[in-house]
């Protein structure tokens, strides 16, 4: 809508300019600003031609940035507002732009010059709202974790798919076939991987108790070492350190498709009864899920990658959708600290929903300020 108005205004200008120019108005408006919220690596030139293209077909900008030689840029007069970023690379660089207009006969007229010194900012105001929201979140989490530590009862609703875990493990034991646990194919810094490792702990404990063969093929080198620690600790906790070996969690390969090739290979050879696919997945999700299905395994999947969820939903027996994966990790560990953060998360979500609804209502009756000040990430 706004664009259209601008366009209309542009057209209007275009038609009325011949009359306006009789009053000797400037052929162009231009200004040079420091670009806000950066480290001073660029400044911006805003340029609006006012003369019609017939009178002044083009403009010449003589740009000098710091010590660099003057560069000449030719702008064809298209009658539109132009914002031109000029790279200074660092703060404290003086920038000068001399503007000349080119007349139809090719002669030049001086239109004046503008200058500015680039400067950097310590604070990026466009990140401030997110930062404040983050602080609020930290406060909520600390508050609820304290409450949880004091033994406050925190309710979490049942998550479908979690009850299936016990049955699936029991089934593997009955059939005497192994359990595969795939903690996603991403790195340690991915939240889904962390959530998956949290679920790996109770699963490994159960597996150790049942003495079921267990295998954790991993793709990322750092996740391997952490997974080994987690499995080892779980076997100790279950009182079966004798069953543990370092080879349970191993690096199957480091690339996307060689990993899925290797894992599907071992699935077909070892015929697991249960396969867990929890964590972050990319295109390989369906290769793993379908191979698991073809060897007759029960698949319990979960990921926060929305592009892979459809495949898990279609191919797997149970799927934890998005956030359910995180909630499951808190639910399974039953640790008050994790439950506390889940509660904090729900509260913040509630607050955001209320703000969201208020913003919609107020926006409808014409009060934009609420939405602009609370939801627009720009300052």
């Amino acid at each position: 809508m706004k664009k259209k108005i601008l366009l209309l205004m542009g057209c209007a200008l275009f038609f009325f300019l011949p009359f306006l120019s009789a009053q000797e108005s400037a052929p162009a408006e231009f200004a040079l600003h420091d670009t806000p919220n950066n480290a001073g690596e660029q400044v911006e030139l805003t340029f609006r031609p006012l003369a019609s293209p017939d009178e002044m077909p083009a403009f010449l900008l003589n740009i000098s940035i710091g010590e660099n030689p003057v560069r000449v840029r030719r702008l064809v007069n298209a009658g539109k507002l132009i914002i031109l970023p000029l790279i200074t690379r660092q703060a404290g660089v003086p920038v000068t732009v001399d503007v000349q207009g080119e007349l139809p006969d090719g002669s030049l007229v001086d239109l004046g010059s503008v200058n500015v010194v680039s400067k950097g900012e310590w604070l990026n105001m466009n990140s401030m709202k997110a930062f404040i929201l983050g602080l609020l979140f930290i406060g909520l989490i600390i508050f609820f974790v304290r409450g949880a530590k004091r033994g406050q009862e925190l309710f979490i609703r049942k998550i479908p798919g979690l009850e299936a875990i016990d049955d699936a493990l029991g089934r593997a034991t009955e059939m005497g076939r192994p359990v595969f646990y795939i903690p996603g194919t991403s790195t340690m810094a991915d939240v889904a991987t962390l959530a998956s490792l949290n679920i790996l702990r109770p699963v490994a404990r159960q597996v150790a108790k049942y003495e079921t063969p267990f295998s954790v093929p991993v793709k990322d080198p750092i996740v391997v070492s952490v997974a080994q620690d987690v499995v080892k600790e779980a076997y100790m906790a279950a009182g079966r350190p004798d069953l543990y070996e370092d080879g349970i969690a191993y690096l199957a390969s480091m690339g996307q498709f060689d990993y899925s090739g290797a894992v599907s290979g071992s699935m077909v050879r070892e015929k697991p009864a249960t396969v867990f696919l929890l964590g972050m997945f990319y295109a390989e999700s369906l290769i793993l899920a379908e191979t698991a299905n073809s060897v007759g395994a029960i698949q319990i999947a979960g990921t926060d990658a929305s592009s892979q969820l459809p495949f898990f939903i279609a191919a797997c027996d149970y799927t934890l959708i998005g956030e359910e994966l995180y909630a499951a990790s808190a639910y399974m560990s039953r640790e008050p600290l994790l439950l506390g953060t889940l509660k904090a998360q729900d509260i913040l979500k509630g607050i955001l929903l209320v703000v969201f609804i208020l913003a919609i209502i107020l926006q409808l009756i014409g009060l934009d300020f609420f939405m602009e000040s609370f939801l627009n990430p720009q300052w």
Partner: protein
Amino acid sequence: MMTKDKNVWYEKLLAIPKPVIYIIMFFVVALPVLFKMQVSTYVTDEVQRIYDHMEQLYQYNQENPDNKKAIFIAFDYDPATMAELDPMSFATLRHAFLRGIPVIAWSGLPTGVDLGEQDMHLIAKDYGAVYGKDYVFLGYGYPFVQAIIALATDVKTFFASDKAGNDTRDLPLLKNIYNFNRIGLVFSMSGTSYPESWVTYANGLYGKMVVTGSTAVSAAKYYPFLQTNQMVGLMGGLKGAAEYEQLVERLEKELNGSDVRAYLETLYDGKDLSQYNTAYYTPEFTPEEIQLSLARRNTARQGMAPQATAHFYVIILIIIGNIAYFARMRNNKR
């Protein structure tokens, strides 16, 4: 729940073994590929417009042989979207080389630089186009906006050397054609949002006509630009590529005769081979290369048919599965 009779028709249909599904899938895709089945797609308006604009450019160049206009191609894609976008670049380059329209190009993505350069040499070889005279690949156009603005004055100041390391002032093509004044059409091939930036700058600032080649997924968002004429043409996905390919092939047959193989075999006979720098390509064809070159002429169209058959195959599978499922339900209720 009654006991299942494994021999009832619907039980059999409900449990089609996977290998059977796979084998049929294999044939459903392989046969159209093998028999070079081509869906002759009707040419949509937005692709026809690209072709027409190129032909207008050719007309203009015929009338102004000393003042030829070039086209500009931005290879803004990387190997991940190559399958869909390469056929478009091929068809565009073919059309340009067939009509002797000079081509200037760069890539806006660091991972697309090698790809774009290779594509250009590959197609240039089919028509004996000479690097530096008929086409130039500048390299990595970065920072994006600065690079576009450089095209408004003199691109040689921005690119002191091209991708291959030549001084841009030594390239004959860039002596005459170095800015937007002499560029007729701007192509942006991309799966990213780069075409929007091309519209903003090349069209918005300098009034250039922009043509976009995009992946099928992102094509939908460019239609608004077509309506406002900010883009004069659009190739979306394999289908768009196939349409343009079809138009260019018709033109090629018209100009070079219908026997493309013979044309390629004799292309370099009796030509002055000293003008070709073997660093870009060797001016002769091995039998393998002729094969590959022939196959490259209709990659997009040959992709279309198996694409459609595969979709219909799965749709039929789904229907069969559901019919069998309902038959079982009805039987169980009785």
